[in-house]
């Protein structure tokens, strides 16, 4: 097992400029879970969700203004997850105990402040308890060792502490239930956290969103041994659904607000009982800039169907220099996987129908993609 200070991934070339530092924590297996007082059971998907998100960061995260510089990971996988990830180096992550998490947090904080305008990403999954929507805890592996919340990660002070120096933005993903504290007399002012500022400094971040997997008082769900619904939705949103054309000239990017919107929609679609709750201050900032435009299905409908045998289609991206591709118009309704962007569809016919050379301009962007009805009368 690696020590808590270990960085799981560091790219070979790290620029001497603004960077992104990530910390990923997932706890499925609890050593002393106070099952009677908290009525919580062991989990089977929190650690694997953390692995999945860390792997996404490693392979897909892209931010030109602050390229990825480090990923730290801590996890307490269940036996099922251990089997599922057998042979994978994520199993070497240090355990997500209170002490280990505290040390990793401090190392991560040092890295986050190593250069001006860095970006910090924190993803944490496991059981969660809230005192208020702005003051949540995520339970760590050794919660219950003492009769308090010392071995839980406290998000509120961590969020404040990240803003005291030079960070440009932070994003915190809390992939846990947001259960209300069952015993109001419990002391909820402890926990593991970054230290809130002692010394006055302006808040440095333009955006500091927190994305909660569940609404206050509600639960979050997952598939045993695989991942959580939130993590899946998050990755799908970062890859496709939350990508929007931003700025002039437009570039494809996931912004703090587009991610919140897409996450809520995607979770509502896949898990109607779960509801994503954004917190912190969303601001407006790109948090992921994919290398290419995302690809998703666009839907075409041609009316009337009897004219189809004479219809021919040529599809061209509206960007200069893009090549045209022939579109097979043999079916009255079909889907085509296209890279997002503005398109021109030229529909022509051979006689007898009297339509020829009609151009249809359409925009194909997430989350729904284009849905075009073409008149070939």
């Amino acid at each position: 097992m690696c020590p808590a200070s270990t960085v799981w991934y560091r790219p070979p070339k790290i620029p001497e400029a603004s960077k992104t530092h990530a910390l990923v924590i997932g706890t499925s297996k609890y050593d002393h879970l106070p099952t009677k007082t908290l009525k919580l059971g062991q989990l089977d998907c929190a650690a694997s969700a953390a692995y999945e998100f860390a792997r996404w960061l490693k392979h897909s995260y892209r931010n030109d203004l602050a390229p990825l510089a480090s990923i730290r990971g801590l996890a307490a996988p269940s036996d099922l997850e251990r089997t599922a990830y057998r042979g994978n180096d994520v199993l070497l992550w240090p355990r997500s105990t209170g002490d280990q998490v505290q040390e990793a947090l401090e190392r991560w904080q040092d890295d986050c402040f190593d250069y001006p305008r860095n970006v910090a990403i924190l993803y944490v999954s496991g059981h969660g308890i809230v005192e208020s929507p702005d003051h949540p805890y995520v339970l760590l592996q050794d919660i219950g060792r003492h009769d308090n919340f010392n071995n839980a990660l406290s998000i509120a002070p961590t969020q404040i502490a990240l803003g005291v120096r030079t960070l440009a933005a932070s994003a915190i993903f809390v992939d846990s239930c947001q259960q209300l504290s069952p015993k109001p007399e419990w002391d909820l002012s402890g926990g593991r956290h970054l230290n809130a500022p002692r010394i006055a400094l302006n808040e440095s971040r333009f955006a500091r969103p927190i994305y909660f997997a569940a609404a206050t008082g509600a639960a979050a769900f997952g598939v045993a041994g695989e991942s959580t619904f939130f993590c899946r939705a998050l990755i799908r949103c970062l890859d496709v659904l939350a990508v929007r054309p931003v700025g002039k000239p437009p570039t494809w990017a996931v912004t703090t607000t587009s991610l919140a919107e897409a996450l809520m929609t995607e979770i509502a679609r896949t898990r109607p009982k779960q509801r994503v709750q954004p917190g912190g201050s969303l601001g407006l900032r790109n948090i992921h800039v994919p290398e290419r435009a995302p690809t998703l299905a666009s839907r075409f409908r041609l009316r009337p169907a009897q004219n189809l045998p004479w219809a021919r289609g040529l599809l061209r991206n509206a960007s200069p220099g893009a090549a045209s591709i022939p579109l097979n118009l043999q079916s009255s309704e079909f889907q085509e996987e296209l890279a997002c962007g503005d398109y021109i569809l030229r529909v022509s016919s051979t006689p007898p129908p009297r339509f020829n050379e009609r151009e249809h301009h359409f925009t194909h962007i997430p989350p729904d993609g284009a849905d075009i009805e073409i008149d070939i009368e």
Partner: protein
Amino acid sequence: MNGWAFLTVQMPPRVMAEYEPTFPPVRLESSDGVDVWDLRANGRAARVPSGVVRLTAQASGAPPITVTLELGDGESRTYRFTDRQFRVVQPRQLAIAGVGDAFRGASGAFFVRFLEGPRRRPVRATHIVSGTADGGLTVTFEREPGAPLFADVLAPGHSRFLLSLATTELPEGYRMTRLSVDRHAPTATISGDLADPELRAARQFAWGGNLGEAMHLVRPYLDDYRVNEPTNDLEAAAVAYIVIRAGDVNALFPWGLELSRSPRLAADGLVVAAEWFAEAGCHLTALNMLRRMTSMGFPLFTDGYSLAIARLASYATVDIRSRSDLDKDERQSAMMIGQELREWNRLEARAAHKQLTRRIAQVDWSSYWIRAAPRPRLPLPRFLRTTWDRLDTLLTSDWTRIAWQVHESPQTDPNARSTTWQDRKSKSDLKGA
């Protein structure tokens, strides 16, 4: 408020699964036929254009089921889609929802009393509680009650719960507040009712993460505050919390800092000002404001309470021994002088946090104004609802007994009419449409 209504559509998960392939399962169109909104938020109220609108549900491969509604300005309606029909859900006339549960009796009574000040003592001013035509309550006070003002509600089978209330001025120094049925929620709840519906909707958007829409709604207020002082402190506090959620804390200057001068919203004003000072790095000032706030009582707004306890809990964890590797220039910044948090500040923050959370067992965090259950006391057993007279004698004279009756509601909306029916079977299903 012109041109908007509130609509809630509930769809049971099993029906949702059937209708999911055509996501969103229920669509809403305005009279000009343009899709203006889709009902993705299952069971949550959404602001929609008033007038004639059309709701459509369509399962894959099945004909659409459409119903046309006429929604009045400011009207709130709830529909449930089951058995291929939209059925209107009538909120109960005065159902009592405690914190985290709902009372579902057909009739009964509850007791209410009004508490004032940080120590939540019964209001001393003479006050009259009267019913309104829509099933709510109006409370008229002889003079301004102390802030914060709470309604303490006691219903059979429930823990007591507190509702924070604001008052409005009447001629000759009288003050008035209202308790009403929150018709925006699928389960009717009683709540304070002096909130601007526009700002209530903005808060709902902000709470749901749609900060763009929330900021769009509050933008006119912000533009006004830039040139004129806010005339309505309740309105200004609601705007301030949305601005804080959106991360645009600088927009609070200067009007947001003046809110603490309002007698009825001093606590909220201090929370708002604390957020502004914390953003500027003046954490000691922020802490002192929150400490002052705890001596005054409670914020009226749930957002204020949440922000206050989160910030106090954070200051309570400051590690005084932590290293401070700031450079010399940073240390000598004028901003920092006198703002360093010390050991005793940490203890003060902890004490203030405890004071704020003491005697509050549970809070309804989705509520616009605070709706909280005090420290757990045994709920009144349900059988007591039949022995109200006995209970009446047990309670002090501060309590007012309110009797209520649930009227049977029609199962379908009399205003709903079928439109584009493509399926005869589904047409016959909508009885009374």
